[in-house]
C-alpha cells in the first residue's frame, strides 16, 4: 500500500508564528500550468495591522543588533535556504516553471550572503566625517528607518521577494511584506527558513493574499515608515503613493543594480555635531 503524503498548509507569518487569517479566508493557488496547487491564506487588512504591530514591537531591538551579529543572522538565512535547496527548487519550479528555477534559488541564497557582508560596512562606505568650517566634530551615519512595507514583484516568486527583503533587513529594519499574489507559496517556505535562522520574531512578517486588498492597507498604515513599491502594479502606483503621503512614507524603488545605495534607500542619515575644545 502506497503511503498517503502529508500536505503542507500554507499560512501567514506574523510575529514569528504561522497563523491563519483572522478573516478565515483562503484563495486557490495554481502552478505555472494552471493546475491547482494549494490554498493560500487570503490575508485581511486586520492581518496587515497585526503584522505592523508585530514589526514595530520587534524593530528597536533588531535595529540595535550590531552589524557583525546581523550579518551572521543573514548569513544563517542563506545556510538554511541552502540546506532546503532541493525543496525550494521544486517549489519555484511549480510556481515559475522549470526553466531558471535552480538558478533562481541559488541567486536568492547568494543575495542573502551579499547583504550579510554589508551589515557592518554600509555605515563606513555611505556615512562619513564632514569637514565643517569650524571647531566641530561632525559625523553622518545611516540608521534604519524603522518599519518598512514591501510589495514584492509577482515574479520571480522567490528571488523577487528576497531581493527586496534582504537589503531592508541588512539596513536593520523590521518588515511587513506582501509576496506575489499569484505565486505566494514559496514565500511561506522562506518564512520557515527565517523562523529557524535567529531572525528575531516579528522582524519579518509575510501576509499573502490579494494585492488589491493588502497593498492599500499597508500603504496607508500610519505606523509604517517606508514602502517599497517594487511589486506595485503600474496602474495602482499613484493610489499607493498618494496613500503613503499621509505620514510621508519614504517611497523605495528598486535600484538598477545592487549597491550599498540599495541598503541606504531603507535608511535615514543622521548627522551629529559636537564642539571641539580644551
Amino acid at each position, binding site marked *: 500500500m502506497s503511503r498517503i503524503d502529508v500536505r503542507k498548509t500554507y499560512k501567514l507569518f506574523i510575529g514569528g508564528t504561522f497563523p491563519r487569517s483572522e478573516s478565515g479566508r483562503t484563495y486557490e493557488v495554481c502552478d505555472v500550468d494552471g493546475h491547482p496547487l494549494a490554498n493560500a491564506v487570503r490575508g485581511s487588512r486586520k492581518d496587515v495591522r497585526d503584522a505592523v504591530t508585530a514589526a514595530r514591537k520587534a524593530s528597536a531591538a533588531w535595529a540595535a543588533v550590531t552589524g557583525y551579529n546581523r550579518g551572521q543572522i543573514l548569513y544563517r538565512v542563506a545556510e538554511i535556504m541552502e540546506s532546503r535547496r532541493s525543496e525550494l527548487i521544486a517549489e519555484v519550479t511549480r510556481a515559475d516553471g522549470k526553466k531558471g528555477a535552480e538558478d533562481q534559488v541559488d541567486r536568492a541564497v547568494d543575495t542573502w550572503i551579499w547583504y550579510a557582508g554589508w551589515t557592518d560596512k554600509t555605515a563606513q*562606505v555611505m556615512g*562619513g566625517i*564632514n*569637514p*565643517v*568650517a*569650524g571647531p*566641530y566634530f*561632525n559625523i*553622518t551615519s545611516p540608521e534604519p528607518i524603522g518599519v518598512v512595507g514591501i510589495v514584492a514583484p509577482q515574479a520571480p516568486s522567490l528571488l523577487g521577494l528576497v531581493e527586496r527583503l534582504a537589503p531592508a533587513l541588512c539596513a536593520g529594519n523590521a518588515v511587513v511584506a506582501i509576496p506575489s499574489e499569484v505565486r505566494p507559496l514559496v514565500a511561506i517556505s522562506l518564512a520557515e527558513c527565517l523562523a529557524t535562522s535567529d531572525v528575531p520574531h516579528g522582524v519579518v512578517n509575510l501576509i499573502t493574499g490579494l494585492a488589491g486588498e493588502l497593498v492599500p492597507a499597508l500603504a496607508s498604515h500610519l505606523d509604517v*515608515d517606508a514602502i517599497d513599491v517594487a511589486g506595485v502594479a503600474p496602474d495602482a*502606483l*499613484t*493610489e*499607493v*503613493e*498618494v496613500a*503613503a*503621503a*499621509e*505620514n*510621508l512614507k*519614504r517611497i523605495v524603488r528598486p*535600484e*538598477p543594480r545592487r*549597491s550599498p*545605495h540599495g541598503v541606504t534607500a531603507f535608511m*535615514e*542619515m*543622521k*548627522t*551629529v*555635531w*559636537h*564642539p571641539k575644545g580644551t
Partner: protein
Amino acid sequence: MASSWGYSPAPESTDTVDIRDDYGLFIGGRFVEPSGGEYVKTINPATEEVLAAIPVADDDDVDRAVDAAGAAFKKWARLPGAERAKYIFRIARVIQERSRALAVLETMNGGKPIKESRDLDVPLAAAHFFYHAGWADKLEFAFPGRKAEPLGVAAQIIPWNFPLLMLAWKIAPALATGNTVVLKPAETTPLTALAFAAICQEVGLPPGVVNIITGAGATGAALVRHPDVHKIAFTGSTEVGKDIQRAVAGTSKKVTLELGGKAANIVFEDAPLDQAVEGIVNGIFFNQGHVCCAGSRLLVQESIAERLLDKLKRRLATLKMGDPLDKNTDLGAINSREQLSKIKTLVGVGVDEGAELYQAECDLPDRGFWFPPTIFTGVSQSHRIAREEIFGPVLSVLTFRTVEEAVQKANNTTFGLSAGVWTEKGSRILWMADHLKAGVVWANTFNRFDPASPFGGYKESGYGREGGRHGLEGYVNLT
C-alpha cells in the same frame, strides 16, 4: 530699552542697497514682465513700508520658465564639470563681494537682525556655492561604482525664513550636478532671489540655467505639477510637503522635502548651564524662531529646572528686540502679518490649555510685526504648543527625570528634524544621539549649519538631505 545700560542706536546703512520700483520674472537670462500683468507689493515687515512691486507668475509664466530651463539643460549637463564649476565659483565670489548689500536687503525684506544676515545667511550662502562648485567635476568620486547623471529641470520652492541661504542650498547642488533650475522664492521675501538673478547675469551663467519666478502658492503648485519638471526640492510646511507627494504620486519625479519640526533641546543636570542657556536662546530665538529646526521644546532635568529657568529668564531680559538693521539687535521683526497672527493664536491656545506664560518686558515698535520672546512652563506633552510648530520666538518647557524619559518625550512627535543634548558626559551624548529620532543632533551646541554637513529630517519632517556628499544624491540618477 528702559535700562540705563542701553545701547545707542547703531543702524547699518542702506546706501549699499538699490531697490527698484518693480521687478521682472527672471526667465531665460532676462527679466520679463509677467504674462498676466499682475504684481504684488513686497514690504519691510519691520516698518510695513512698501519696498517694490513683484510680478506674480501664472501658468503661462511657469511654462515659459520650465521651457527655458529645459532648453538650457542639454548643453549645461554636457558642459565638462570643471567648466560648470567655474560658473559656480564665480557666483560664490560675487556673493562675497556683494555681501553687505545682500545682507541689508535680506534684513529689509525679511525682518531678521542684520547681525544674522551679515554673519550667517550671506556668508553661508556663498559657502554653499563654493563647496558645491568643487563637486561639479568630482561626482564620480561621490558615488563609487556608480555613474551620476543629472535629472533635468529642478523645480525648487523655498521659504521666507532664510531666503538667500535656502536659495543657495537648492541651486548650488542642482547646478553642480548638471541640472537646470526654476526657483520660486517665498511670496514675502523675493528681493534677494531677484538680486541673485542679476548675479547670474553678471557671472555670465548661460541663459535658462537658472530661472527665478515669483508668486504665491498657486505659482508653486503649477511648478511642481509641470510635466517637464524632473526634480522637486521643497522647503516649507509639512502640509504642503504632503500635497507635493500626492501631486507627484505615480510619476518619476524625484522629490526632496525639508519640512516642519518641533525639536527637543534636552538639558541634563550635569550640563554646563551657562552654555546651555546660550544654546537654548540661540535654539529658539535665533531668527525670531522662524527656523524649522528651532529648539522649540526645552526638556530640562527636573533637578535643575528651577535654576536653569531663572538663568534663562535673566538672559531673556538682556535680549534686544527692535530695528533689524541695528547692529545690536538680537530679535528682529516677525516676517509677516499672517505669521504674527499664527503665533498669537497658538500662544493663546497655550494659555487656554493651562501652560504658564512668561514674556520678557520689552517695548514693541509702533509699526511692523513684533512678538516678544516667550516661554511657556508647565507644558504637558498633549498641549498643542508642545506638538505643533509655532515658528516664532516661543519656547515650551517640559521636564524629565531619567535619560529614558528624555528620549521618550523627545521622540514623542510626528516630526524629526533636529534635537539638542546638553551634558558633560560623553557616553551619554553618544547614547542619546543613537536614540533620538532626528536627522541632525546638536550636542552641547545648537543651530549649527555648514555646506559640508547633511541636513534633513526623519518622519514628517521630510526626506532627503541637503548639503554634504549626501545632498548630491537628491539631484542625480545613479546608473
